[in-house]
């Protein structure tokens, strides 16, 4: 927002840039005063708790929360849709559960913060005149984009972890991703526009009158209340990934002990339309690669060397649970059909006929990891059909949606 107050004059004629700047900041005619009714009246909002400083402090907290959410969300997106330059390690095994747990916990904590922040600036929605200039109108439009995008992200995120997709007329994951960029962009614009006000309020430019001091004390209580609300939301949801706090996870849609074999399930066999194929006694897993093709039934799979790994299943929705998985190493299966299983990419496909997550590509660092299993058992028991019976992928440090269930085919793609 560069304001040119001294337009260049060339031979008595203003330059096009100067004319544009003048037009941009020229005052617009005020609407008739008769329209100034209801919330548009002066003094319509009377809470003394609102102030620039309160708004700034809430804005800073929200800025941190949204930045953390954006970065952790971007990381999750890159892991699921890796571009050529991206690399994601197999160790430490808990890294993704932490980054995604932080993503969801921070997003939930931002809900009360955003609510109070929008309350603190709500009277400005009715500022008079509605637009002082084209520049002012553009600034207000950018704030509308920011507010809409921020609400979109938080409301959509809460709907997603609640598995309630009916109100969202778009594919959540893609919408959440692109609107995240929109939110961060609008946030930077807002920060740039409001920088002088933010600096002034952080310098503590406040009056010391009794009224102001009393209002400030009340604002402190309000901020304490907001912080407490954000803390409570975190405390009552973070138990979905931190087991010792699971008893407090009253607001968490998933808890560690939920589901068959004490493990939550997002997609059931019925929901995936795969139950009959998964329970078919004639089940065979196809393992194919450059040097051959095998068709293995469950007896064949159980006859291969079995290994046990303690690995978390970490969902993109923020919950994660440690479990004990037993099965065949993916690299041992790859070794059946290729000469160098240490450097290959592996395509793992489900028995599902369709679905966005019916197949996943496992990069070499995960495919060769001794903890990456085609699991046949969970906690010593045969896999429940909702956990992927007869066989599922479990690999360290990967999102749950990439841990393909009901495996029907494994294809070694070779090294790339």
């Amino acid at each position: 927002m560069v304001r040119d107050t001294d337009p260049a004059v060339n031979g008595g004629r203003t330059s096009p840039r100067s004319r544009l700047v003048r037009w941009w900041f020229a005052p617009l005619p005020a609407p008739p005063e008769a329209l100034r009714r209801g919330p548009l009246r002066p003094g319509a909002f009377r809470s003394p708790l609102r102030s620039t400083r309160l708004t700034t402090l809430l804005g800073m907290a929200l800025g941190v929360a949204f930045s953390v959410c954006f970065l952790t969300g971007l990381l999750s997106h890159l892991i699921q849709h890796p571009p050529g330059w991206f690399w994601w390690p197999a160790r430490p095994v808990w890294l993704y559960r932490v980054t995604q747990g932080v993503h969801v916990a921070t997003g939930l904590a931002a809900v009360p913060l955003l609510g109070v922040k929008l309350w603190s600036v709500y009277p400005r929605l009715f500022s008079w005149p509605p637009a002082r200039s084209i520049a002012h109108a553009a600034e207000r439009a950018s704030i509308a984009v920011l507010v809409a995008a921020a609400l979109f992200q938080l409301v959509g995120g809460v709907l997603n972890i609640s598995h309630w997709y009916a109100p969202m007329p778009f594919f959540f994951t893609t919408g959440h991703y692109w609107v995240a960029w929109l939110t961060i962009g609008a946030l930077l614009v807002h920060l740039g526009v409001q920088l002088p006000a933010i600096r002034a309020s952080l310098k503590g430019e406040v009056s010391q009158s009794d009224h102001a001091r009393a209002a400030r004390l009340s604002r402190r209580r309000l901020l304490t209340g907001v912080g407490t609300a954000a803390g409570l939301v975190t405390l009552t949801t973070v138990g979905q990934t931190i087991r010792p706090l699971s008893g407090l996870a009253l607001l968490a849609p998933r808890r560690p002990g939920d589901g068959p074999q004490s493990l939550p399930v997002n997609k059931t066999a019925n929901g995936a339309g795969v139950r009959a194929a998964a329970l078919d006694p004639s089940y065979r897993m196809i393992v194919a690669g450059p040097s051959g093709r095998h068709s293995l039934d469950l007896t064949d799979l159980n006859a291969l060397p079995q290994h046990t790994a303690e690995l978390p299943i970490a969902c993109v929705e923020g919950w994660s649970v440690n479990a004990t998985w037993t099965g065949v190493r993916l690299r041992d299966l790859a070794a059946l059909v290729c000469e160098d299983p240490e450097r290959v990419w592996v395509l793992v496909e489900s028995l599902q006929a369709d679905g966005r997550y019916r197949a996943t590509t496992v990069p070499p660092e995960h495919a060769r990891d001794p903890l990456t299993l085609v699991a046949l058992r969970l906690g010593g028991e045969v896999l429940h059909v909702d956990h992927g019976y007869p066989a599922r992928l479990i690999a360290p440090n990967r999102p749950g949606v990439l841990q393909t269930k009901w495996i029907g085919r494994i294809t070694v793609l070779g090294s790339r």
Partner: protein
Amino acid sequence: MKARAVLVTAGLLIMAYAAVGALADPDLKPGGVLIFLAGVLVGHDAIVMPIVLAAGAVLIRIVPQRHKRAQRGRPPAGRKNSESPAKPGADHTDR
């Protein structure tokens, strides 16, 4: 001024990237996203916030005076606009 220009320019470029990316993504229905964006904005500003403010106004009426801690900060009677910040002109935050 330079910092502000950098922030605003970077923000506008990122917003443009988001718009172009969303329009080019075959997995996304931009119309659905726009409907939801408008829906949450209108739902918040025209429904949720008026209900919250009305509930606050009702609470103020029914809560006994001695419990109204937040009201201590009210300006003296007769002052017309208690929305004014502690320092005149300091409340620039807009939306």
